[in-house]
């Protein structure tokens, strides 16, 4: 298993595909950080002019602040992270089948599940390497550029955020691997994965607001519409959370902005009274997104387990 894992990992790291993704993300990271720094320094100048106040956790904003014409790092990860996962996983099994190497691999004195386990773990490791390298470089670059000093809590939040990025990308990788097992051709699995990614990331929120709007109409004003507003919102949020993209964005918000107390806007509104603007501790922030984390882990495991079962039940013919 270890041999296979190492081989798969080196395959990943050596592959042009991985290197291209890596360079792509690195470029994006540099652009995003520069954009964030210019925005933050403008804000900081305004603060010294006595206009607005700056968060205590300024450094975290490097990850979430967007520049004037470039998305923030977290937005890029939310959009493009799935692509990385899909690219690393969509041809995991069917490529081997197509090249006829799976037979030879299965002929080796190894358990068959070792093959898929090693592939998944190697993919996971490759993702983790990519994310933590980028995150680390970004942190260092941000430190040099801004001169901010990191607090222990900021470090904890950044590490947790990078872990969540890895988990998010792994989720998509698990999904792509499931398609790579079920579909015969790599192109099919790639298209299927990308279709799901596009659907959940781009269109799901539109569909959700349509569904919520038809069940709890809020148009036309009136008392009923006002009553519906909260139900409508709750339903939208609930349905949106089907999409890992939405879940990940909530995780990002809570983790990287200690000022946000809850992902639930309704409870935020109702418990606003008497609340004092304050920062949540890391543990408290983590508790807020704990269900999200559990959900992402569960989805990853379920996708992987489905791929595993499918793969194990399959006949490998010569």
């Amino acid at each position: 298993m270890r041999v296979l894992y190492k081989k798969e990992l080196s395959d990943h790291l050596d592959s042009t595909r991985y290197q291209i993704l890596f360079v792509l993300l690195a470029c994006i990271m540099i652009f995003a950080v520069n954009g964030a720094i210019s925005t933050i320094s403008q804000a900081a100048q305004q603060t010294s002019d006595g206009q607005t106040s700056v968060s205590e956790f300024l450094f975290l904003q490097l990850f979430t602040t967007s520049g004037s014409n470039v998305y923030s790092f977290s937005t890029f990860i939310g959009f493009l992270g799935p692509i990385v996962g899909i690219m690393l996983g969509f041809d995991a099994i069917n490529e081997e089948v197509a090249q006829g190497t799976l037979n030879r691999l299965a002929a080796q004195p190894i358990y068959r599940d070792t093959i898929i386990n090693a592939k998944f773990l190697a993919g996971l490791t490759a993702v983790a390497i990519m994310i933590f390298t980028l995150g680390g470089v970004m942190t260092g670059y941000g430190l040099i550029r801004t001169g901010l000093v990191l607090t222990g809590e900021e470090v904890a939040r950044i590490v947790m955020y990078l872990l969540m990025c890895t988990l998010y990308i792994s989720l998509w990788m698990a999904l792509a691997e499931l398609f790579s097992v079920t579909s015969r051709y790599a192109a099919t699995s790639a298209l299927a994965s990308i279709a799901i990614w596009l659907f959940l990331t781009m269109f799901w929120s539109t569909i959700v607001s349509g569904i919520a709007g038809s069940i709890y109409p809020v148009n036309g004003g009136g008392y009923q519409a006002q009553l519906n507003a909260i139900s409508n919102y709750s339903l939208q949020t609930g349905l949106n959370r089907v999409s890992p993209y939405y879940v990940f964005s909530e995780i990002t918000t809570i983790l990287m902005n200690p000022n946000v107390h809850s992902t639930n806007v309704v409870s935020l509104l109702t418990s606003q009274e008497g609340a004092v603007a304050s920062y949540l501790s890391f543990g408290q922030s983590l508790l807020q997104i704990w269900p999200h984390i559990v959900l992402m882990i569960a989805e990853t495991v379920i996708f992987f387990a489905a791929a595993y079962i499918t793969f194990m039940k399959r006949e490998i013919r010569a």
Partner: protein
Amino acid sequence: MKKNFLVRTGAAGMAAMMLGVMLTATPVMAAGQTEDSTEVVVGSGITMYTSYPGLTVKAGDTATFALNFTNATSSGETMELSASSKDGLEGYFTGSSNTVNSVYVPYGNNQSLVTYTVNVPDDTQDGTYHITLTAKGASHTSTVNLTLQVQELDLGASTLKAETDKQSGDSSSSLSYSLTLQNNSLETQTFKLSADDAPKGWKVTFADSNGSSLESVDVDPVGSTTIKVTVTPSSDAGAGDFKIPVKAVSDSENLEQDLTATITGTYDLGLTTQSGTLSFKAKANKKTPVVLDITNSGNDTLNNINLTATAATDWTVEFSESTIDSLAAGETREVTAYVTPASSAISGDYAMTIKASADEANTSNQFRVTVETQTVWGIVGIIIILGIAAALIAVFNKFGRH
């Protein structure tokens, strides 16, 4: 009749001196003299007199007599002034701010030409004293007998008196008194000022009228001085009247004056948590006990202290003791507040105000409540993850084909 006679005599004298040709003018001259007649003095010769020849004075005082002269002669005259007294009282004559011993008395009435001043020594006994003043000229002599009724000074005990011996204020203010120290002896006395018997913790300082502080004060013989006394009560002085005996002690005398300070009651309530912090942690929908210290920091008993809390909607705050009947000065009472945040409260800080109001005073403090999400859901999440892991292992075992 007398006046006419005088005029006529003067006119006759002049007429006699002028003789022959002047005779025709005589009636004119006589008429002129008659017109001046208000200036013309009564009697003959030169008279010295004073309006009030008898004075009553105190020993140590100065008696002055304004001396008037009437010259009824035709010409002025220089007169020697002298005074004699068998009782030994001595004085001096002054005129135009100078000490004089003779005076020129021109014709007519001369008011207050000379002043005679007598210094009555401090040790002069009671009694009546006589002084004879004599003005002696070449041809006239006039005498005035003066009588001085001397009342002896009230010598003996010096006095220490307060203009106001009662002042009131709260325990944080300082009270000012004004004392007059009268030295009734014939010597300069040095009085040492003290207030050693003032209540404990009180501060008493002395100052002269200019405000510079004094430990002791010199008082001239038969003189007096004003002493300002500043009393600073101890900060924990309770309400009520306090006696502050102030002493002025010299070598021979021991004076005392009681000052009274009325301290008005101050009422002050303190409210804080036992740790002194104004923040604590609570979990949503979970009763959290917070021990509060309610302190009476005033100097009088507080009655009927009611505790109330203002918090966000759906929060409940209960007190182990919502009413304290009375709390003596300086005492502290522990009260436990049970704070239950609303079940919908989300993580973060909330403001909550607890107010303690007694009949006499009230205080309120804002507390910062950090609401934390209950970790039970975190544990549930971990259980779910463990369940997923177990399921994965089960999948591995079932389909592993090992």
